[in-house]
């Protein structure tokens, strides 16, 4: 299953791209409208993209009135990403969304450009859970000392799935002035640099919770998608890659099927969790692991 990552596609401006997805995810919606941060908001850096969009969105009222209805007509199921600054913010949006045809509510618990409510991840999930029966996906940042623990807490609070990962904080300076390229100073780092970080997060949370996981972070090819699935993802979302290649949904889907077959899996889904099949060696247990060093003649 291939989705877009929240904030990386406007399905109404690019409906032909949106229709190639198995579900479309909205940009994060907050209770009140937000213009977002001052420009400059994007800059490419070492193997990644920095952004400080700042959750620009029309607010939940205008979203429900003007955006959601045409989105629902596009075809693919609509996942609504919800953000806020308190558990009550999230709860209020969930109350409103419960009455709509949105397929899933994704709780953005991790945007690095606004105050970070990670501590309260479980409290937010619980508050949202009380307001809606729709599947709830908790979207986490990898910038947590122990992401698996937070994922576990979200699961206990009623999350039905996880979206992993959001961006991590980064900074790029202008070569000439040495001042930050983004108006906000730091921003969120996405793209290839995030790939090993995303894989690690999915790997850890799959073990800890067993919940469905939308994996994302630097996916550019079917091979990258397969690795996320092997680490534990049940679906894969495309973010930054869409900017360079709006044809990525079809391309990655085809490459993924091919890669999965190459590795002997009937379907990509059959590869889920394959990286866990042999338990990682314990500290100071080198003997068993020496097997890994053997090279074929």
């Amino acid at each position: 299953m291939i989705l877009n990552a929240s904030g990386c596609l406007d399905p109404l401006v690019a409906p032909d791209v949106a229709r190639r997805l198995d579900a479309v995810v909205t940009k994060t919606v907050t209770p009140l409208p937000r213009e977002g941060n001052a420009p400059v908001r994007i800059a490419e850096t070492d193997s990644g993209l920095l952004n400080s969009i700042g959750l620009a969105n029309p607010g939940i009222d205008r979203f429900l009135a003007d955006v959601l209805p045409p989105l629902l007509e596009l075809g693919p199921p609509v996942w609504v990403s919800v953000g806020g600054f308190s558990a009550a913010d999230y709860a209020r949006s969930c109350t409103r969304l419960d009455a709509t045809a949105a397929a899933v509510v994704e709780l953005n618990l991790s945007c690095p450009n606004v105050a970070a409510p990670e501590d309260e991840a479980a409290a937010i999930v619980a508050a949202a859970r009380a307001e809606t029966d729709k599947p709830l996906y908790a979207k986490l940042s990898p910038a947590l000392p122990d992401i698996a623990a937070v994922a576990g807490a979200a699961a206990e609070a009623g999350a039905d799935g996880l979206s992993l990962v959001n961006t991590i904080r980064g900074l790029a300076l202008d070569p000439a002035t040495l001042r930050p390229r983004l108006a906000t100073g730091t921003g969120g780092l996405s793209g290839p640099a995030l790939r090993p970080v995303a894989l690690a997060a999915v790997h850890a949370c799959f073990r800890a919770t067993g919940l469905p996981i939308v994996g994302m972070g630097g996916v550019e090819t079917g091979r990258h998608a397969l690795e996320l699935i092997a680490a534990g993802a049940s679906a894969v979302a495309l973010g930054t890659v869409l900017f360079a290649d709006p044809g990525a949904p079809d391309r990655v889907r085809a490459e993924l099927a091919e890669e999965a077959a190459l590795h002997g899996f009937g379907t990509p889904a059959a590869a889920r969790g394959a990286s866990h099949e042999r338990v990682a060696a314990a500290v100071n247990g080198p003997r068993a692991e020496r097997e890994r060093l053997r090279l074929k003649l």
Partner: protein
Amino acid sequence: MSPARLRVLGVERVGPYALLRLGRGPLDPGTPGQFFMLRPPGLVVPRPMSLCLAPPGELAFLVDPVGAGTRALAGLERGDGVHVVGPLGNGFRLDVQRPLLLGGGIGVAPFPFLSARLGRPPALLGFRTAQHAEAAALVPNAEVVLEPTLVTELLSPGFDVLACGPEPMLEAVGRLEPAAQLAWEAPMACGFGACYGCAVEIGGRLARLCVEGPVLGGRVRGQIPAMAGKVAAA
């Protein structure tokens, strides 16, 4: 909106700029002032480039190598492949009576194509140095001024101005000619409304230049028609 993989037919030096000539592939040249997203090899996101020339079977771009992305594009070689998406955005309106092209620096880029479509109207081009001014050769009927002279100093009234250049120049032109069509720039990661990275102040609020522009009316502050619902809070 799939990217096409176009073939580099050649790269020619035009002063400090590089004229990047690509096989057109399946892409349409669009309207002058529209742009394409070109992915520099090895980099993460593509860079916006105005179409400069559209000879049969070709799309040509004039690239000012100012940073990693434009340097990588200028460094492409004949035979290389490059991913291109476009045409994107809103170009110049061509239903004008007495067109005058007003350009500054690399802002000359869309004018060769625009000039051809408008029947070689007069053009007034400002450059930093004589070397940069070599690019004026691509535009018919062009008068050139060099810094410290500004193109706005030579602007006489009565023309339908179509301008492209650095922001201070566009702001000055907008003040002198409120009806001018101005081609703006902003850093862009996608070019098709997906990233909200290109937000600039339009009509007193932040909106996506790649969706609303890049060509806008002269009096952008408070003069832009109300945005469509879907982008109202961009």
